[in-house]
């Protein structure tokens, strides 16, 4: 399938200290970010972290209370949304309930006074692209969630916008459909090359889709990087927690040498790990559940725990165990374990991240 | 935000409307306190005596008692009849439901005069006109449908699973009504009651058509006082009108505490 839809590429969209306050609360605290043409950027964080605020500021739906946004050197933050020409997919889709699928998709084109023949051709193409040929004359209320989602995407991309903004577009769909639409969005991005900013609270979604992640917390950028970088090398405890480091073991720092730090738990077990921040006294050792291996003997970087709960997950088991000092531990393993077993868990040095 | 001409025009027109409204109300309030007021900017002296005289001459205590009795009776009866009806309409589909819905909509859509005159005729036929009973019955005609109309969507939004859960816990129908539904319905019933109260106190036509000398509510005696003015000074009618507006204002302020005016939409969207 060939497509003529393609965004007008820009070189660089630059957010310079973008700030947004609501009364006394600052939802976005001086965000700096540069987005290159063709990139897929995900803004990631829990609700209230400022990711949607950032998106609305980009769209022009919220005026800034500080900073500036430039597109290839031209200032755009003083333009109203309709003058920016960005496409946006809303969380609740915001389909016009009184218009058919085709009229929804063609709305932006008719606002631009596109000639009839061209409008028809482009709507046809967009309908084909999101595979809604059978449903193009229906109204939004007659469509399923996934179909509505496709209409919303088609409506945003039919204008070939330089930038597509997506605000948690998959959060209203059920699990199976969410996976399907995720692939769909990735496919559209790969084939059309539209620059996209995608807001989500789901780290799996962000990792799967984005070229680059921006992790936000309380209105502040925590880390910007490729999925691999953020996943393997989170800069702080918060990002680590978001990236699946479920075990945060409280420890005391014994010694630090170069990249590594030696720490011990309050009942004297020694762990060596990678130092991710400047450390003093107390610290946290972060380990992913899947980085533990069950071993038979006590050795370097080995913890002893008692199994409490075992969940069967097919190929592997999710195990909740407890260290001797009482702190809980989450483990994923192929070994068959039963509640009450005493186990020894080894973790490689480079898979232990030590944060202050 | 840039202020556009449309915005200025809107606020300007609104301000003009408000100024005139303040003038209209102000004129009545001023006159009710006026010693005498003929052809000048302001009256030549102020007094509160008209309130006392109106209170005595128009026997306002009796009138207010009647108003109160009628309004409370209408509220209680319309809730007792309206809420079960609303429940059945909200929860069941049955043959003839559409017809019943229309029948409960018509008394609200019809001008009170159109059914008030035949109703008064019927009441005269059965010698019920002029009594408290007649006034209450007439006021119930729009009040019951009003309760049904406001309560049906309110009941619809209560999850039926809550009732099923109560049943699974061993509650019988009566217990479900008193222990589960009633507490959930209280806010809706309260809102509907207050709106019915406001409407009944303000309802002129139906009371006027059916009331006798001892069953007049405040609106009606106010109207009678005004149309028979000339015998008594204008100021007395005005002070009575101020009393009426004052009591309506109290009711409205109470009503606004319980009812968000912008929520009216969900109620009327499905019915009308």
């Amino acid at each position, binding site marked *: 399938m060939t497509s003529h839809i393609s965004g007008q590429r820009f070189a660089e969209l630059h957010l310079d200290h973008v700030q947004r306050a609501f009364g006394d609360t600052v939802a976005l605290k001086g965000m700096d970010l540069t987005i290159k043409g063709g990139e897929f950027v995900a803004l990631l964080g829990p609700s209230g972290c400022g990711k949607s605020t950032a998106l609305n500021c980009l769209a022009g739906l919220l005026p800034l209370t500080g900073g500036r946004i430039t597109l290839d050197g031209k200032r755009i933050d003083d333009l109203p949304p309709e003058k920016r020409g960005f496409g946006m997919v809303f969380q609740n889709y915001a389909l016009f309930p009184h218009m058919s699928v085709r009229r929804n998709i063609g709305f932006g084109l008719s606002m631009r006074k596109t000639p009839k023949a061209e409008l028809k051709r482009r709507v046809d193409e967009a309908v084909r692209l999101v595979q809604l040929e059978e449903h193009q004359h229906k109204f939004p209320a007659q469509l399923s969630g996934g179909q509505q989602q496709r209409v919303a995407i088609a409506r945003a991309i039919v204008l070939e916008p330089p930038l597509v903004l997506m605000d948690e577009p998959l959060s209203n769909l059920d699990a199976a459909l969410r996976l399907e639409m995720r692939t769909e969005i990735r496919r559209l991005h790969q084939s059309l090359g539209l620059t996209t900013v995608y807001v989500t609270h789901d780290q799996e979604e962000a990792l799967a889709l984005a070229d680059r992640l921006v992790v936000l917390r309380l209105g502040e950028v925590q880390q910007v990087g490729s999925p691999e970088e953020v996943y393997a090398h989170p800069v702080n405890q918060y990002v680590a927690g978001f990236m699946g480091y479920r075990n945060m073991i409280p420890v005391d720092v014994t010694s630090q040498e170069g990249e590594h730090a030696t720490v011990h738990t309050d009942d004297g077990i020694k762990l060596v790990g990678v130092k991710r921040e400047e450390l003093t006294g107390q610290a946290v050792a972060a380990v992913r559940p899947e980085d533990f291996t069950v071993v038979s003997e006590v050795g370097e970087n080995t913890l002893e725990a008692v199994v409490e709960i075992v969940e069967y997950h097919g190929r592997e088991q999710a195990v909740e165990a407890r260290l001797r000092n009482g702190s809980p531990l989450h483990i994923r393993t192929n070994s068959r374990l039963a509640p009450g077993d005493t186990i020894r868990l080894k973790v490689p040095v480079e898979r232990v991240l030590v944060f202050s | 935000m840039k202020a556009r001409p449309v915005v200025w025009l809107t606020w300007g027109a609104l301000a003009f409307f408000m100024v005139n409204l303040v003038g209209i109300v102000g004129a009545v309030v001023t006159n009710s306190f006026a010693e005498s007021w003929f052809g000048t900017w302001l009256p030549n002296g102020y007094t509160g005596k008209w309130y006392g005289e109106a209170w005595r001459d128009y026997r306002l205590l009796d009138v207010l008692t009647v108003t109160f009795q009628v309004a409370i009776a209408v509220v209680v009866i319309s809730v007792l009849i309206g809420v079960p009806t609303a429940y059945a309409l909200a929860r069941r589909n049955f043959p003839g439901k559409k017809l019943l819905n229309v029948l409960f909509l018509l008394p609200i859509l019809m001008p009170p005069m159109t059914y008030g005159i035949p109703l008064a005729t019927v009441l005269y036929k059965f010698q019920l006109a002029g009594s408290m009973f007649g006034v209450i019955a007439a006021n119930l005609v729009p009040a019951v449908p009003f309760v049904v109309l406001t309560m049906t969507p309110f009941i619809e939004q209560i999850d039926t699973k809550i009732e099923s859960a109560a049943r699974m816990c061993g509650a019988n129908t009566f217990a479900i009504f008193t222990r589960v539904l009633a507490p959930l319905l209280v806010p809706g019933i309260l809102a509907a009651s207050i709106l019915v109260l406001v409407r009944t106190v303000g309802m002129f036509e139906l009371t006027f*058509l059916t009331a006798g000398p001892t069953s007049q509510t405040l609106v009606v005696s106010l109207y009678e006082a005004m149309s028979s003015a000339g015998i008594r000074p204008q100021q007395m009618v005005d002070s009575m009108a101020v009393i009426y507006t004052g009591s309506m204002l109290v009711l409205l302020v109470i009503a606004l505490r319980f009812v968000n005016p912008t929520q009216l939409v969900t109620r009327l969207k499905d019915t009308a």
Partner: protein
Amino acid sequence: MTATLEQPKASVRHRLAEKGVDRVLWLLVPGAVFVILLFVYPFLYGLQLSFQPKGGGNPFQNYITFFSDEYLAETVWITLRLGLPAALFNVLASIPIAFRMRGRFRGKRALTTLLVIPITLGTVLTAEGLLAFFGPTGWFNRIWLALGADEPAKLTHNYWGVLFSLIITGFPFAFLLTLSYLSGIDPTLEQAAATLGASRRQRFRTITMPLLAPGLAVTFCLSFVLAFSVFPSAVMVGNPAGETHVMSIAAYETALRDNDFAMGSAIAMLMALVMLIVIGVVLIWRTTLYRGATGGKG
């Protein structure tokens, strides 16, 4: 009944259950009895009474009299001439004001309350106020004359007084309804239109108005009912024997002053008919509009 009794009991229950008839429907009995006794019966009684003219003879005599007596026939036109403009004005004026009142801003609650207060005024205070304020020596005309007018504007005891009274008492209702319909429209729809390049005016024309129109139709109908039933203010601030001799006055005077209940009922029936025609026309127009949900989710 006898046929069903011969069937096994369970089968009747099953068939009723299939139609959704069960014990819950007993709850409808008081409501149904009430509406039939106090609304349907009097209405039908009035209808048949209107075909029994006081003097006997032709059953249609009351209606013939109504349309052949110019003084009576004219009331239809007089009432419409008051009711339609008042309802139209109230609805149209509500739109821009409700539009300004969307969203949150400081003092919104106070302003809403201020706009709703006229509900409490009641017809008599409004009438007294209009007579005093717009009267020949009232504050309005004093300012009017001070501004250089030659003679006081005549705004009471005529058409204008009644129209003003209908606007003052009717506007709060129209405004509240319009505001609630407008608040029911998902604001992200307009935002979506904005990101698609629609200007403020285009958003209003293509998104807000089409979604608001069905609500406005209902608002117009309810405002019209209020204005069409005008009675006390037409007597007090109008000219009840002439310019504002509306149908309500005609019906009331014939029935209760002249004791011709048959003729009074006939006028009441005609009043209901005229009103149903107007509302019917508006509602038929409304069926041509989109009437589904106005929220974001389908």
